[in-house]
């Protein structure tokens, strides 16, 4: 997926992985959709950013004899996810618009191929 687009969706997907219950770094990475292909190097700054925006909160707990950081959504985080979903229709409309434009171009080219070649000297 295009990097710019991915970035917009990534925040929402990461938030979504902790929507139902708290989770930890490696688990979140495993839960994320495969097409986002995220590595720790992008993931860590992203978590820090979400934390700075107070969308997620961190708790330290012991697991397998060592400390692990568990992340969960704050109320603001839940609200952010809801806002993301509220935009869904608009995003779908945008895809529809692009799709329709491509289809129209294809059909008009197919119907009258002479226009293009005829314009050429």
């Amino acid at each position, binding site marked *: 997926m295009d990097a710019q687009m991915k970035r*917009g969706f990534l925040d929402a997907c990461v938030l979504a992985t902790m929507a139902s219950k708290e989770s930890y770094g490696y688990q979140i990475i495993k839960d994320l959709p495969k097409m986002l292909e995220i590595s720790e*190097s992008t993931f*860590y700054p992203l978590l820090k950013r979400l934390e700075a925006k107070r969308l997620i909160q961190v708790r330290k707990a012991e697991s397998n004899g060592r400390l*692990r950081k568990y992340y969960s959504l704050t109320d603001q985080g839940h609200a952010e996810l809801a*806002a993301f979903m509220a935009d869904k229709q608009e995003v779908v409309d945008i895809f529809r618009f692009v799709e329709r434009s491509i289809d129209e171009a294809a059909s008009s080219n197919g119907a009258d191929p002479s226009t293009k070649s005829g314009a050429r000297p």
Partner: protein
Amino acid sequence: MTAEEYIAELTRLLYSLPEQEREEALTFYRESIADRMDDGFTEEEAVASLASPAEAACAILSNRAESAPEPQPGSVAEAATESAAARPSFWARLKRGQLTPLEWVGVILSSVIWLPLLAAAIGVAAGVFAVILSLYLCVWVLIGCVWITGGAMVLAAPLNCVFILWGLQLGNVPYALVNAGYSLFAFGAGAWILRGALKLTKLFVRGHRKAACAMRKQPWPPEAASSPQQPRPEWSTFFTICLILLGVGLASALAGYALSGFDWRVFLTSFNENGTILIGGTQVKLPGLIPFDMPFA
């Protein structure tokens, strides 16, 4: 690469971060490696599946720079469009030499103003540098003075004992007491001053190393957790004794002064050019009365 090597490399690359922030990132990466190993990866595989330390450090440092100054939350979709529209600032493009022709003309025409300003700024910077350098030298000279003062006091203490003997030979007990006080006080206080000088020197040298490390972008402390050296118990006993000597010396000098009926001359010792010496107000001939060779005449 082992996990330890990975973390060490990342530590080195994140040197410029505040300690707490760096430690947080390192903890995250340690946890990532450990979680993968719990999931059945070998240590090698776990490390290999992460981005290289350089990439990781780059992501942390660059994201830090852009996320720090904007605390207000914006929606996810907004963030994506915002960054697409962003254009590098004038200064960023100037650095890379990517200005528009019009901007170049502006830069050249306005050089009448900014060149003298730049020259002035360089002059001021040089001045500040010179002041800092001279302050730095001053600090060393001051530390040297502290060493010399402490050393001189400790050395003078035993030499001054000669005057106690001379005072006793003359039967001037208050004078002897006062000089015993001088000796004890000088030794006790001198030892403490030397201790302070050592501490100051260490502090300053430590500052040097820290600055040198910062310039070479190496982590501080250089050796793993350079543990603060505990002073040895013998030394702390020694310095306690010195403190007591200092107090006893003061008391002794005061006692001598009181015993003389508060005659200020008990504090005086002076050598005269005609071979006499003034001891607590009594002028005596040097060789006749005193069996000791003058150590310093």
